[in-house]
């Protein structure tokens, strides 16, 4: 392989394994994704632009990104809290709670969708208390935030937790011996160490939330201009066989996802570099 130079290794299978990896990646991931680009190239720039900036579409971006941002922000606060409590304190059932945090990764999103919808419906366990207060969750943006918070819940916890575990107690002891209060130790010493992990967790949660579909279908009600998220809009365009429009919006979303992925990669590299010693 001319471009892929590798150091001499006595282990066998380099060509075979790398060849298979690249082939499988190409066929399953890159080829289909390139279909998206090819299809977009069928459109003129004007067509593309008018499709991706139509009011209904723009409203869906705002909703998708806004609710995903809100959910990721909620998870930053509570994810940090959960990670802190799991690492620093002892209580009965901690291992059970720790295992439960991964539930949103394991539970199919459609199940989460119908469960949350039934809970927050005006007659549901939680909804019946909110309805008299005038708080509407189901078929409203708030419902989307609730569902997105659920599905992106583990990210911040799982990125912060290991960093918190590895944090040497010596730096905290040093700060205490220098007269810092507990709060000062948290804000001056612990939080700066956690920032890269928090940001990574935030970006992962956000990326996952922006693309989420399964749980939202049930709770949002899919009212155009009001509770229609971008993935749903693409889905309904497809159902109407408007492939070109679906593709154009898909390209915008994919572009946003790539940027996020790059940001996450960059942040992880930055964090690794900063934590080098």
């Amino acid at each position: 392989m001319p471009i892929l130079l590798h150091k001499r290794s006595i282990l066998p299978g380099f060509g075979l394994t790398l060849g298979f990896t690249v082939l499988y990646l190409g066929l399953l991931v890159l080829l289909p994704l390139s279909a998206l680009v090819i299809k977009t190239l069928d459109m003129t720039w004007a067509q593309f632009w008018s499709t991706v900036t139509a009011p209904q579409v723009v409203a869906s971006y705002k909703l998708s990104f806004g609710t995903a941002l809100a959910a990721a922000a909620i998870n930053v606060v509570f994810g940090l809290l959960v990670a802190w409590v799991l690492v620093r304190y002892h209580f009965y059932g901690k291992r059970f709670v720790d295992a439960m945090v991964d539930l949103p990764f394991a539970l199919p999103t459609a199940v989460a969708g119908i469960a949350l919808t039934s809970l927050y419906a005006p007659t549901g366990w939680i909804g019946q208390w909110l309805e008299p207060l005038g708080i509407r969750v189901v078929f409203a943006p708030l419902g989307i935030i609730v569902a997105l918070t659920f599905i992106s819940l583990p990210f911040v916890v799982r990125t912060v937790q290991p960093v918190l575990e590895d944090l040497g107690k010596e730096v905290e002891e040093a700060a205490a011996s220098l007269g810092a209060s507990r709060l000062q130790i948290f804000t001056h010493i612990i939080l700066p160490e956690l920032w890269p992990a928090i940001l990574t967790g935030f970006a992962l949660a956000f990326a996952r939330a922006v693309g989420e579909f399964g749980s939202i279908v049930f709770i949002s009600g899919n009212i155009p201009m009001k509770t229609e998220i971008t993935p749903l809009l693409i889905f309904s365009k497809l159902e109407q066989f408007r492939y070109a429009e679906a593709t154009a919006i898909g390209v915008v979303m994919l572009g946003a996802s790539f940027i996020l992925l790059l940001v996450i990669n960059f942040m992880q590299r930055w964090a690794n570099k900063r934590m080098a010693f």
Partner: protein
Amino acid sequence: MRETVTIARPHAKPRALTEPRWVRYTLTALALGFLALFLLIPLVAVFWEALSKGFGTYLASFHDVYAWHAIKLTLIVVAASVICNGVFGITAAWAITKFSFRGKSLLLTLIDLPFAVSPVIAGLIFVLLFGLQGVFGPWLRDHDLKMIFAVPGIVLATMFITFPFVARELIPVMQSQGTEEEEAARVLGAGGWRIFWRITLPNIKWGLLYGLILCSARAMGEFGAVSVVSGHISGRTNTLPLHIEILYNEYQFVSAFACASLLTLLALVTLVVKSLVEWHTHRIEALAEAEAFEDRPEGADSPHQPLHPHRDHP
């Protein structure tokens, strides 16, 4: 959930090194409250709704051809994804961790790519590729093959979604294990397959199991991508999550939640197995650590044993 923050323990931390008791209680209560609201209550709700009309009605929900078909199709999809992505994960991890080559970080980023793609777009790209108006659409039609609104499309879309799971689990595990053992086996004359089966596989089996579990959990529950490519043909292209959607939209709530409870149970099994795997790996690590620290109960002390220069008894 009852909780006791370690306060009464004999080796309580001095005040400056932990928070006051009320802060600890408040934070713990807040965290547990948040988790209860978002994780525990929805979980309970699934089973509550499923059993709301009694156990008989619950069981009756499964006496349905379509439900059975959905379960069968889901199993096929899971099996296909787990096998293909498992093989891919192992080969990719082998190539990436046992050799150094240019473009490795690009390859790693590309493997992560499906994580960043919305499920709906994952479905969309296969429609664009194999749909009637798609790139290969005309060719497939001429040969009387059907990918979209058929099982192959569902399998492909699920494979795309679950593509990185096994590889992402294995790469760090194999990276940390290095290549020394394999190289030693090679020097002793073992061939590639033998090295893999006898040396590598036993070392990575827990990581592999974990990756396969994550992969199958995601495969069995995938909704968005499958929803786009399936066409929702009951009895033919409905997986369990899609079947739930149809039941739910037809206001057959008990049946919908009954099927949902099945998937929830599988999700819980996944969590249990995952915890077991983690517990196992932790135990191995702890054992290794305990050996290294055996004669040093004081962790903070220096690792160097002082030398006692002296002579034997004459």
